[in-house]
């Protein structure tokens, strides 16, 4: 049954030009950002020192060194997952646009299978993103790190797993909105406003209590800012070189919840 659903999803995606275009834009934007980051950091360090604000480099001088490269690139990738969420929203709302939810259902898929297909889409997109970062990390890490120590290469690869979970959680949230709202444009607006405005206010105001456990905030906290002098300087509270297990649990709970809500919405709705 899983194979059948994956095959059907692949048929829909394989010839969907808009999907491939959007996915390419995400990948290219992410890689360009990761490539350009080093020179931005070096320039910032130089500027800060020249203007006498800081006597020591506030940022790491090489972000591509094993094992920290995994933390660095997944932290940067955190800010790009919104593009992937847009792809996810389009995949779901397409089914409403073409009214193919109804067609799939009357042809013989169950409501549960319809939602499960989209959960698979989210899983595959998250996996693709993690694989892209793995490839990028291996290449750049090998180029910039002196010597080769296997332990150094794999030591912080758990950040890739955290990245996968973070992206999957975020995509399930986007999927849930798309299933509820039906319209692509409106879903994207709601996601943007919620993620970048609505949730930030309580997350900031109640950061001492439940603020860090709001859905998107807690998912983001899976990968926190790397410990560097600049973030100390900016009084950034959420920085850690470790992945805290509490946020793994919270992210898993929320992701399950988003998938369940999607399912119950579709189960109850007339298609």
């Amino acid at each position: 049954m899983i194979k059948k659903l994956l095959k059907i999803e692949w048929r829909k995606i394989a010839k969907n030009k808009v999907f491939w275009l959007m996915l390419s834009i995400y990948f290219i934007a992410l890689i360009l950002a990761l490539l350009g980051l080093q020179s931005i950091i070096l320039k910032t360090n130089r500027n800060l020192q020249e203007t006498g604000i800081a006597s020591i480099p506030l940022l790491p001088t090489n972000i591509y060194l094993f094992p920290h490269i995994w933390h660095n690139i997944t932290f940067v990738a955190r800010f790009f997952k919104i593009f992937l969420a847009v792809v996810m929203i389009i995949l779901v709302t397409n089914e409403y646009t073409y009214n193919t939810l109804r067609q799939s259902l009357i042809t013989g898929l169950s409501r549960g299978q319809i939602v499960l297909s989209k959960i698979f889409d989210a899983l595959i997109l998250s996996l693709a993103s993690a694989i892209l970062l793995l490839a990028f990390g291996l290449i750049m890490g090998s180029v910039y790190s002196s010597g080769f120590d296997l332990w150094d290469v794999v030591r912080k690869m758990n950040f890739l797993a955290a990245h996968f979970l973070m992206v999957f959680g975020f995509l399930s949230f986007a999927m849930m909105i798309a299933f509820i709202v039906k319209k692509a444009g409106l879903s994207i607006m709601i996601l943007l406003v919620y993620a970048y405005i609505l949730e930030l206010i309580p997350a900031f105001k109640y950061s001492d209590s439940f603020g860090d456990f709001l859905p998107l905030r807690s998912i983001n906290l899976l990968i926190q800012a790397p410990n560097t002098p600049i973030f100390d300087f900016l009084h950034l509270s959420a920085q850690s070189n470790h992945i805290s297990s509490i946020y793994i649990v919270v992210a898993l709970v929320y992701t399950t919840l988003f998938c369940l809500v999607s399912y119950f919405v579709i189960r109850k709705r007339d298609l």
Partner: protein
Amino acid sequence: MEVLKVNGLTKTYGSLTAVNNLTFSLKRGEVYGILGPNGSGKTTTLAMLSEAIHPSSGNFLWFGENSGLNQRSKLGIMLEKPNFYDYLSAKDNLKIIADIRGVDYSEIDIVLKRIGLFERCNSRFKTYSLGMKQRLAIGAAVLGDPQVLILDEPTNGLDPEGIAEVRDLIRKMAGEEKTILLASHLLDEVQKVCTQMIVLKKGNIIYDGSVNVKANNEIIIELMAEDITALTEALKQSTDFTNFEHKKEMIFVKTAPNITTSNLNAYMQQHGILLSHLAYKKQSLEEDIFEILNEIR
């Protein structure tokens, strides 16, 4: 053997009752029509039977079981307008349908030829005319040779040639022991294709029976005379002709089949009325239906 049993099926949207308390059943091999004007609840009914929308109350059994995936795989359904991925070709869209139903791809070409889309099967769906889209929807319904077909306005958007082809196709499938439920707002279509029908009006069943049986029940005789008042008076005096209608200059008398025009003529002569027009008219089913529709309205 009963294929479908519908029991008190009802769908309400707020204060609007789209489908009200439908009860009917479908036997194996029957070609059943659902006739009704636009907005009478045909699509809503079929969508409920396809499980696309949830009934507000009532239930239905396919093959004697509460519906589920097992039953649905025996049904070939097309509802309202064709719903396909517009960036995919007919062939790719049918491949998705075949994947869902677990049908071998070799059947796709057969179906494409049967619905007359084989030449254009690699063009994208969005480049198709309405008629071609409609054919593809029928193709999707018949792919995998399901035992039961649910067809909602299958000839919508087709040209006369296409209409004839689709009706032929349906009749052919009816000959193959398939059970067919066909919704249409065209009486002619239901009469040409179906054996049994229900007539829906604002969500209510107002007729359930053979597509022909009603037509033989009543006979209408048209009457005209110089003195129309005397004519009506004469009709009122007889117990045989109490059921009559006065439209403009003409009087329409509904009678039992044993009354003939000569009976009536003789009766009028006894009353000294000279008829200027006397005609026997077997009421057509269409008029019957419109009459039923009018009665309810």
